[in-house]
């Protein structure tokens, strides 16, 4: 059993039309209260992944399930969750079209922890949608899909040798997350 922190974007970029099947809304867990606009947000998908992992016997959580204490800032809350939930594994859901500002902050913290040796590369599992990152069968290169949205964290994640599993459909994403964290 793992204690999993499910990270990733919360909202879609303005004007982006995500390819999230509408039917997934019916699979959202009963404990999850959807917020904001119609259609599933990346945050809703993360809640779905948390439920999938809980069904598999893991303890999984989201930052959004932990209310800030007093004037607590984001970094302090992140570390409180890591300690309070005894986090030993990080799942990064990385869809095309997600707002990555919050993710960049999470990446920064994780990469620092990786470099300091506080977190093992095996503990950070990255799930980019193929539009974000994918293997080119012709050249054998990993290629980036989202033009003008490159981040230095791609290179950092590759250097850190964190397991990376690109996905193309939400069925695949959910299956791959379960398989990466299972026996």
């Amino acid at each position: 059993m793992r204690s999993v922190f499910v990270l990733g974007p919360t909202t879609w970029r303005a004007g982006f039309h995500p390819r999230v099947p509408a039917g997934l809304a019916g699979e959202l867990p009963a404990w999850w209260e959807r917020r904001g606009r119609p259609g599933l947000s990346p945050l809703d998908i993360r809640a779905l992944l948390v439920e999938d992992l809980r069904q598999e016997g893991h303890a999984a959580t989201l930052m959004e399930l932990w209310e800030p204490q007093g004037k607590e800032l984001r970094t302090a809350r992140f570390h409180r969750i890591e300690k309070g939930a005894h986090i030993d594994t990080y799942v990064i859901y990385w869809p095309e079209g997600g707002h990555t500002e919050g993710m960049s902050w999470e990446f920064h913290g994780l990469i620092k922890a990786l470099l300091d040796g506080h977190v093992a590369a095996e503990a950070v599992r990255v799930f980019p949608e193929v539009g974000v990152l994918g293997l080119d069968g012709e050249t054998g290169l990993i290629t980036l899909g989202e033009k003008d949205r490159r981040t230095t964290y791609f290179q950092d994640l590759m250097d850190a040798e964190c397991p990376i599993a690109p996905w193309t459909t939400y069925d695949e994403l959910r299956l791959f997350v379960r398989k990466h964290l299972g026996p």
Partner: protein
Amino acid sequence: MKLPEDPVTWAFQNPHADSILSVLADRKPHLPLEVRKRQGIAPESFRKAVHTLTGYDLVRIRSRKGARFQGTPRGYGIEVVLEVTPKGLQVLDLLDGFRGLLRERQATLARATKERWLTP
């Protein structure tokens, strides 16, 4: 097509999983192109097989030591290597066991079965 929950079921069905895992069984990093060409797999079939192998956590993709993202004729990319994971070795062990069983009963097998499992 929806992938099966069980990676062993997929590996038995996929025509390339076995050959890719076999090349990686030495536990050394291999360039994807080297694996693809050595096994004579078409680019798209290879991409799909590696995609699913990494999804099931049977194969790991990591950057080649010292490689950096850079512009290439096919976009912004980085050189990577493939490595087998402990789960991948377990699946390969099952496939090898099955192949051994078939070898023992070769005389009773259909030609297609021999071609699929016993032809190097």
